[in-house]
């Protein structure tokens, strides 16, 4: 029953297969990149005299609780992966949202720390308030601090055109040193000679999903070892907000329009400056929330371990691997959470240095980066009725729109 050429366009397209195809083609690049990274990683392990199968078995066990051979508890491994996943989801969105506006937020780490610092400060000083008041307060405080930190970069970008990559890197370091000051000798220090803050009040803490009880045995271990907390629900809610904001609101349209072409956005009546600032504020709020939740859900105080935190940097890889979509970011966060969680088991069981995971992360980034343009091009036509690619207005915008799609033949170069 060959349809005549004339009727083809009018025929309703079979929705589901098309969606499936789109998902499949969208998944192809990230999945391919991950596979490629693991293959190269295996070669590196092999070349240095290690056993890649043992290494990856350890990673799978520690990350997903699968293929465990040394008596590991699968539920424990899965819960550990989820704990690592939670902040990555929110920090990942803090990188992904500016991506859509053609901005590269390398400052998720600084914003994360700002959020953690604000949450701790409020949680200590108002520690006696009851949870219904204090908990929203510390989370909102964290969001505000993160927004402020990112907002500095946003304002500098919008007003004097300062490159946000550089300003956010600088702001990361300022946050790092501020943190050191605060907990070593500064006002948040617990006691002389310590390098941590006092704990936040009980009302500022997020509940764990399973009872925090050393005596209740679940899956063979005390239930308190499963540290998954209600921050998971907040993270998933934030992901939904992210998707809604991006695709169902005027602001989301404006963000995408600015990311496609600042000139075109301007013609369409979008205030590019305002959009840049608002985008960075929201992004910072996401990352600040991640920091606040890490304090409220896991640590309950600021410690020296935040000196070596890398959540905001991992978030860059997460945002790229997730192709800037909410679902993609959640999936990529799970992968990176699993890698993080699995690295310890890998070293304990297979004797392969846990820094192999860093190598794998870098390899994933390389292959994603090299395919990044293709990946976005595949997705954008179906999702964002965006204006045709136009020449970029600024290096930063150029960076992203160029990455998204090379300028069409004959387009004038950037000026």
């Amino acid at each position, binding site marked *: 029953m060959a349809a005549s050429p004339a009727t083809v366009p009018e025929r309703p397209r079979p929705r589901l297969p098309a969606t499936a195809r789109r998902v499949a083609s969208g998944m192809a690049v990230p999945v391919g990149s991950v596979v490629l990274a693991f293959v190269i990683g295996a070669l590196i392990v092999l070349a240095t005299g290690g056993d890649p199968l043992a290494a990856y078995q350890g990673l799978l066990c520690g990350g997903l609780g699968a293929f465990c051979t040394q008596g590991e508890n699968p539920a424990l491994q899965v819960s*550990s992966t989820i704990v690592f996943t939670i902040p990555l989801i929110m920090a990942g969105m803090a990188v992904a949202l500016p991506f859509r506006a053609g901005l590269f937020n390398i400052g998720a780490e600084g914003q994360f720390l700002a959020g953690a610092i604000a949450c701790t400060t409020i949680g200590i000083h108002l520690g006696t308030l009851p949870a219904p008041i204090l908990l929203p307060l510390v989370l909102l405080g964290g969001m505000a601090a993160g927004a402020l930190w990112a907002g500095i970069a946003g304002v500098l970008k919008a007003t004097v055109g300062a490159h946000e990559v550089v300003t956010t890197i600088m702001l990361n370091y300022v946050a790092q040193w501020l943190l050191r000051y605060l907990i*070593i000798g500064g006002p948040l220090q617990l006691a002389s*000679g310590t390098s941590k803050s*006092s*704990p936040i009040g009980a009302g500022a803490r997020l509940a764990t999903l399973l009872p925090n009880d050393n005596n209740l045995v679940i899956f063979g*271990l005390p239930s308190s070892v499963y540290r998954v907390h209600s921050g998971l629900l907040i993270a998933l809610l934030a992901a939904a907000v992210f998707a809604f904001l991006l695709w169902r609101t005027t602001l989301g349209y404006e963000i995408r329009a600015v990311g496609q072409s600042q000139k075109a956005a301007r013609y369409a009546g979008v205030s590019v400056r305002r959009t840049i600032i608002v985008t960075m504020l929201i992004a910072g709020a996401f990352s600040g929330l991640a920091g606040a939740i890490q304090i409220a859900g896991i640590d309950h105080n600021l*410690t020296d371990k935040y000196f*070596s935190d890398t959540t905001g940097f991992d978030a860059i890889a997460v945002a790229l691997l997730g192709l800037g979509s909410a679902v993609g970011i959640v999936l990529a966060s799970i992968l990176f959470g699993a890698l993080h969680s699995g690295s310890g088991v890998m070293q*304990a069981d297979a004797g392969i240095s*846990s820094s192999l995971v860093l190598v794998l992360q870098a390899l994933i980034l390389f292959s994603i980066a090299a395919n990044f343009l293709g990946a976005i091009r595949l997705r954008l036509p179906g999702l964002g009725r965006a204006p045709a690619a136009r020449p970029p207005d600024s290096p930063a915008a150029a960076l992203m729109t160029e990455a998204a799609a090379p300028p069409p033949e004959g387009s004038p170069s950037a000026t």
Partner: protein
Amino acid sequence: MGHTRLRFLGVVAAAFMLVAACGSSTSSPPAKQYKVGLVTDIGGLNDKSFNHLAYVGLQKAITDLSVKGDVTESKSGDDYVPNLTNFASKGYDLVIGVGFLMAEAIGTVSGQFPNIHFAIIDGAGTDAKGNDLKHANVQSLFFSEQDAGALVGVVAGMLEKQGKAKKNAHVIGAVGGISIPPVNHYIAGYKWAATMEDPGIKVLIGYSNDFVDPAKCKGVAQGQISAKADILFQVAGQCGLGVLQAAGQNSVYSIGVDADQKDSDPSVILSALKKVDVATYTAIKGVVNGQFKAGALTFNVANDGAGYAIDNFSLPADIQTEVDNVKAKIKSGALTPPSDIPA
């Protein structure tokens, strides 16, 4: 429904553990192989300092006591709890955390696994406020760093007093990493003893604010050398290697820390030793022999857990006599080096 099922699982698991426990005690196999898990802090195994020494102790236990030993390096502070929990959940007989950064993590995990033994180097199992939880399954391995600092301080003070150092300005220095207790204990003993031997001495104390980057410590050391210091004590881990090198390049003396750092630079005349390897081995041996003791176990000069090594230097006889003298007095309790840096 779901709840009862969880309960049921728990009961099954508990029963299984009980059976397993009974099985091992009744059948009395020739020798139970004890399992020891070691979790490093973010310094990692190649830190040429306490993580490394802890591993050396574990290796000795693997050889001498036939234990099974496994190691996990923590990449970030977020890894402490998961890495400790992983070993504990696998039923390891002893889980060792290296470094006082892990105190809170040990406090948490030891509460969850009351039947597993834990040991921690340089700390106790604490709550978030830093209070020792005093769990019955945690052994805290502390060191009197001030003892080791005092012994090298005696030598430094004597050399200055006798004009045997390089510049004869009665100035010595100490370069710390970050101003935290294990660092300051060393410096306290050093300054106290040097001042005791040479009351006119000036002890410069600086911090690099870093434990990793040798160039940072080298800068601090050069500042002290410019201020006429001619014996420099490094208390900054790997960063401190820069102190030893700065001393070498400026032809003054240096003193190593934690491990014997004789080979790090020809300028190293002494090392203040903190025998983390001995402590680790002792903790493992205690578990294997069924003599695990909860609470603090302090390693000091008296039990040979802290001391000094003479490196690229031949110690004059009279100084050796004085060091032995002070050492004997510290052992007997006649002298007690302070743990806080004297004014």
